C-alpha cells in the first residue's frame, strides 16, 4: 500500500525503530503536499562525472580495474548551494539527493522522476527501488536526452519518492546501512557472481589461449 502524505508525516514522527527519517526537509509544506502520496526530493551538492578517456571499457570482472582505474574514471565535483551544474546533451552524471533517508524495515520506496524534468529530456533515476531498512542519500543517475544543456542547482526539487508498506517487515541486512552521503559507484556484481564468472572466464581464456585459436575456431574443431 502506498503511503499518503499524512501517513508519511505520522511515520516521520514515530519513535525508533519505526521512525522514517528524511533529513533535511527544507520546506515540509511544499515537499509533502497533503493531496499527494509522494514526497519531493531535492538535488544534492555532490556529483560524479565519468571521464571515458582514462578507461578502455568497464569490465565488471577486472578486480584490478575496480581497485585502481575506476578512481580515475569518475571525477567528483562539489557544487555549493547557490552554484550551478550544467548537464550537456547526452551527458551522464551521478548525483545524490540532498536528503538522507533512513527507512524502517517495514517501508520500501520508489524513486521517480518529475514530469517537468522529463519533458526537457532529463532522466533522473534508472535503478528506482529502495529497499526497506535503507540508510543513506539516494544516488541518482542523471542523463540529458534533450537537445539543450540543462543548468541544475543543488536544492532543486528533482525527484519524488513513493513509500510503500512491506508486510511482514523486512529483516535488516548489514549491507543496507551504507550511510552514503553522496553518489556511490558500487561494484557491478555481487561477490559470489564475481568469483564464479571470473573462474569461467579464466578457464575459457586458458582453453583458447593454449591452442592459439579464437573461440570460433575452438568450436569448429570440437
Amino acid at each position, binding site marked *: 500500500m502506498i503511503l499518503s502524505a499524512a501517513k508519511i508525516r505520522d511515520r516521520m514522527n514515530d519513535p525508533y525503530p519505526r521512525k522514517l527519517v528524511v533529513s533535511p526537509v*527544507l520546506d515540509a509544506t511544499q515537499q509533502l503536499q497533503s493531496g499527494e502520496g509522494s514526497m519531493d526530493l531535492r538535488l544534492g551538492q555532490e556529483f560524479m562525472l565519468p571521464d571515458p578517456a582514462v578507461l578502455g571499457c568497464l569490465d565488471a570482472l577486472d578486480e584490478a580495474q575496480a581497485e585502481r582505474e575506476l*578512481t580515475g574514471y569518475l571525477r567528483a565535483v562539489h557544487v555549493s548551494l547557490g552554484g550551478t551544474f550544467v548537464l550537456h546533451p547526452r551527458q551522464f552524471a551521478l548525483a545524490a539527493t540532498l536528503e538522507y533517508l533512513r527507512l524502517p524495515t517495514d517501508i520500501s520506496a520508489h524513486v521517480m522522476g518529475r514530469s517537468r524534468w522529463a519533458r526537457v529530456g532529463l532522466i533522473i533515476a534508472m535503478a528506482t527501488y529502495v529497499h526497506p531498512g535503507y540508510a543513506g542519500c539516494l544516488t541518482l543517475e542523471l542523463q540529458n536526452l534533450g537537445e539543450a544543456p540543462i543548468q541544475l542547482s543543488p536544492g532543486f526539487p528533482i525527484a519524488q519518492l513513493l513509500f510503500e508498506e512491506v508486510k511482514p517487515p523486512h529483516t535488516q541486512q548489514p549491507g543496507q546501512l551504507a550511510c552514503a552521503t553522496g553518489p556511490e559507484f558500487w561494484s557491478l556484481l555481487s561477490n559470489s557472481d564475481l568469483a564464479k564468472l571470473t573462474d569461467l572466464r579464466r578457464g575459457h581464456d586458458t582453453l583458447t589461449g593454449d591452442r592459439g585459436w579464437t573461440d570460433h575456431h575452438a568450436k569448429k574443431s570440437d
Partner: protein
Amino acid sequence: MSIQADELRKKTYFRLRALQGAVQELGPRVRWATSARFLWNLLRSSAVGLKQQLVAADSNAASFSQVVQSIDSTTDVLHSLLWCVETGSAERVPQPIVSALEHLVSQLVPESRVLVCYDWSPSNYGYLREFLGDLTNNIRTAVLSDSVEEPVRRAADHLPEFFPVIFLPAAERDNVLLHAALAHEIGHGLVEKLGLPAIQVPPELASTILTLSAPEWGDLYELHGRWLRELVADAWAVCLLGPAPLMSLEMLAPTFGPERTHPSSNLRFRVMQQCLRATGFISDETPVTDMEWIAAKTTSAIELSASAVGNPNLPHCASARTWMEQYIDHIAAFVHGKASDLVYTAQRWEDECDTREGGTARRHQLVRRLLYAAPADVIEINGAEIPANLPAIVNAGWTVYADPQLWHSFVESFGEAGLDAEYKANRKLQRLVLKAIDSVNIQHKWGLES
C-alpha cells in the same frame, strides 16, 4: 588484552588503513610522474609490510609503538610526495565544519574569515601566524594611509578580518571528529584578536619548579610566555565546542618538552577540564554523570604525563599544585568573561529540550539518531524538529565513539565484527556527523533558524 593495548591496536589499524587509502589515491596521479613511480612502489610494499607487522603484533602491545613509528615515517614520505605531485588542494578541505566554526567565532570577531589548508605531515594541526594575517594587516595599513583616496579607504574598511592560515592534516581529512582540534587553532586566532590574561608567576614558585625540573628546561618565564598562548587557545576551544576538543587533543597525544611549543598534556587537560567544570559538563559533586568517560579518559593521560621526567607540574609538589589551580581558574575566567553569551555550557545542551513529558534530553536524541544510522542534525522540541548546532553534533559523535557500550552497539548495528568492521563503522560515523553539520549549514542558508 588490556584496554590501552586495544586502543593502540585500533589506532594503529586505522592509521594503516588511512595509509593504504592514501597510496590508493596517489596511484593515478603518480602515473604521470615517472620519478615518483619508484617511491610509490616502495610505499605500497611498506604498507604490506606494516600490515604483516600488525598481524604479528596482534597479541603483543609493546611492539605496536614500533609499528606506529614506521607508519608515521612512511606517511611522512608519502605526504611529501603528494605535496610534490599535487598542489593547491585547499578546495577539498572539509568546508562544513570550517564554516560552522567561522559562524561561531564571527560572534566574537565580526566579519572574521577562517582559512584552512592541508598540511602533509600526519596528525599535525597548525596555526601559521606570519601569513595572511600580516598580509591583511599590511594591506589595511597601507591602504588606510592618509595619502589614499577616500573610496579606496572605505573599501579597505570592509576587508574581512582574516585569521591567519590554519593547517589541517591531509591524512585526517575525513576524520571530522578529530577536526574538533581546529577549535584550538581558531582559539589562537582569538588570542590574537582578544588578547591574553595578565598572569604573573611568583618568583619563589618559579625557582621551586625549576629545581624540580631538569636543568635544560631553562627559564620558566620564557616557557610561560610560550605556553600561555596554548593554554588560552585550549580554553577557547572548550568554550566554543564543549568537551569535543579535549577528546580530539587526547587522541592526537600531543608531545611536550622545553623545546616544544605546547605545554604538558597534564596542564592542558587540567585547563580544559576546569573549563568543562565551569560550564557544567563535569561535576565534582555528581558521582555519575553522562560525561564521566571524559574524566576517565583524561585521568589516564594525566597520569602518564605526570610520570614523565622533567615535568614541572609534578603532582607531589603541593605549592605548585595550589598555584596551578589558581592559574587554571584565571585562564578559564578570562575566556568566559570575554564570551559570556557564547560559551557552550552543558545547560545550553540540555535546556532546549522537553523533558517534562517523557521526552529525552537533547544529547540523547542526537546520539539516538546516530545509533539509528541517521545524521544527528535535528532535535525535537515540543513536537517540532529544529536544526541542531555544531557543538551538539560533534559532541554526540564523540559520545558514540568514546563510550565503549555505545560504540559497540553502533558497530553491531552494521552486522559485522572485527577491526575491519570497526574501521568501516568509524568511516560511517564520520560521514553521519559530517552530513549532519552540512545539513545544518544548508538549513541555515535556507533561512531555517538553528
